[in-house]
């Protein structure tokens, strides 16, 4: 059981990292960025491609992948979101245009075979791969009868450190103040001289970099990298997490991530894997119906 709870913490860290990016965009832009899961997938795919196809050591590969994912966030902003803002479209439109981008990202990876146009990025089509053995050192620790893999420990530490850093940035830096101001009231922020478009771009960069990082950590820990990991593993569970925590609330997303990890593990232990798969969505549905502001009672106006 203790081992199961450890697993819950690891998977919860990934959910939390992913959901923090999701919820950040929703909080600041009022837009649900459904391309976030595709960026998550690309984080894992790019790292894998740098390590396995281009022979790069893991750490620099991971850093490059995270930066590339951040740039993809800018792409999302400039292609799918900014034009819609310019014509004052309702928020549902942005939901649909980001779905379009997600379709494109996933299809590009899924169709990439040796000899095709994107073979430098991915060569395994729709198949699932894992990092080559030895590419990432993975010492195993035995503490008090528990088995802890080095990669999972790395994930936990990275997630916690990054979320603390993010919390610091949001609360105490100039950028964070601007973010919160824009989230609170876009027009007032403009009047105060904040360059709203620039804040939106930074938000997308930050959010997508976190999403890509979550993806590569997922690929590392679960040993499953495929074009579908974003769509199948975290896209909808990420939604469940940010709904549990209250849409747009960053602490809520962190707590929600760990909570979902815990709920899933408990459901798995108690009822088996078929129930585990559905429990996130049942929770999502129930929370939206009974308590739309999220479990932790974040007031909708005060979200970051």
């Amino acid at each position: 059981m203790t081992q199961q709870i450890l697993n819950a913490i690891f998977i919860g860290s990934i959910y939390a990292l992913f959901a923090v990016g999701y919820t950040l965009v929703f909080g600041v832009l009022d837009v649900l960025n459904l391309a976030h899961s595709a960026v998550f997938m690309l984080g894992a795919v790019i790292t894998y491609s740098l390590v396995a196809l281009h022979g790069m050591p893991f750490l620099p590969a991971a850093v490059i992948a995270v930066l590339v994912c951040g740039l993809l966030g800018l792409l999302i902003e400039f292609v799918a979101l900014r034009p819609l803002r310019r014509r004052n479209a309702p928020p549902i439109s942005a939901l649909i245009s980001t779905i379009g981008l997600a379709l494109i990202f996933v299809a590009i990876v899924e169709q990439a075979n040796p000899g095709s146009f994107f073979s430098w990025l991915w060569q395994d089509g729709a198949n699932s791969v894992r990092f080559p053995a030895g590419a990432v050192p993975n010492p195993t620790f035995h503490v008090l009868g528990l088995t802890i893999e080095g990669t999972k420990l790395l994930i936990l530490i990275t997630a916690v450190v990054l979320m603390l850093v993010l919390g610091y940035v949001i609360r105490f830096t100039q950028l964070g103040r601007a973010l919160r101001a824009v989230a609170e009231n876009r027009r007032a922020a403009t009047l105060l001289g904040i360059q709203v478009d620039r804040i939106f771009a930074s938000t997308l960069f930050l959010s997508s970099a976190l999403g890509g990082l979550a993806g590569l950590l997922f690929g590392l820990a679960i040993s499953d990298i495929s074009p579908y990991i974003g769509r199948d593993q975290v896209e909808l569970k990420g939604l469940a997490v940010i709904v549990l925590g209250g849409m747009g609330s960053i602490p809520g997303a962190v707590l929600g991530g760990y909570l979902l990890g815990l709920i899933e593990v408990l459901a798995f232990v108690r009822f088996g894997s078929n129930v585990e798969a559905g429990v996130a969505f049942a929770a999502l549905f129930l929370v939206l119906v009974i308590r739309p502001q999220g479990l932790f009672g974040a007031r909708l106006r005060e979200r970051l």
Partner: protein
Amino acid sequence: MDFFIQLFTDPVGFYNQHELLIAQIGINAILAISLFVTFYSGQLSLANAGFMAIGAYTTVILSLYLPLPLPVNMLIGAVLAGLVGLMVGLPVLRLRGVFLAIATIGFVEALRLGVILNVPITGEGQGLKNPTADPLGGILPILVSLPILAYIVWRLTRARLGQAWAAIREDELAASSNGINVPLYKMIAFIIGAVIAGYAGALETHINFFVDPTEYGVTRTIQILTFAVVGGTTNVFGPIVGAVFLTALPEIVRQFASYRDVVNGIILILVIIFRPQGIVGRGGLALIRPKWLPASWSARERPASAL
């Protein structure tokens, strides 16, 4: 190009060669109509794949265990989807916009992963074999149902009901202060959408030999949404045009067949940015005007659409 040459010079041969495609176009068009109904009343509900699953499974389970005629089974499937629509709609329709979309996604996945995978009668995720499947005979009911459903929905959107939906879509508060019973009309739209989606699911099982739970996930719902959005949601013909166009596209442009999702994604983004009223729908392009273009180039009128 061959596609069109054959369509116009040899329609019978074309029909025989593309039966499956035609059936799929019909199903997709009906599904797009089902999404259109809720969308027309201003609600983005993504529950359609779930209602489809209910219609499909009900029909197949009934024909496995009860000696009823197939049309009756299909109708029961559609009605049951409507009943579930009522039960889901009661709590969910209080939510708006993105929240409604998320809640209905939750419903679809909870139904698929939580119920279908765990209830023995549905084959627990292994899927079900359909004893009454008839791929060729199944096309006719689809082709008959599509125009009938389109006509009914078209009449509904022109009637008082449709006017109420349009009023709610444009401004919920104004609609309710003018005496429109907003929750009631939203619920009617939701249930009609559910019944049509359930019916489409039942029709689809008739042309497949197998009911596969993976067919009824969020991917399917998003596909349906794409049809409706690309075709346009100002009237009922938009979704049909969108479904026909996007389903036939990979057949028309064979070179891109494996990159169909890339093409779909690009079309979706271009439509939502430049033509939010869809292919069918009045008005020109909602041009995002670069500074050097004269102002007369951008569409001035806001198109009548929820997007």
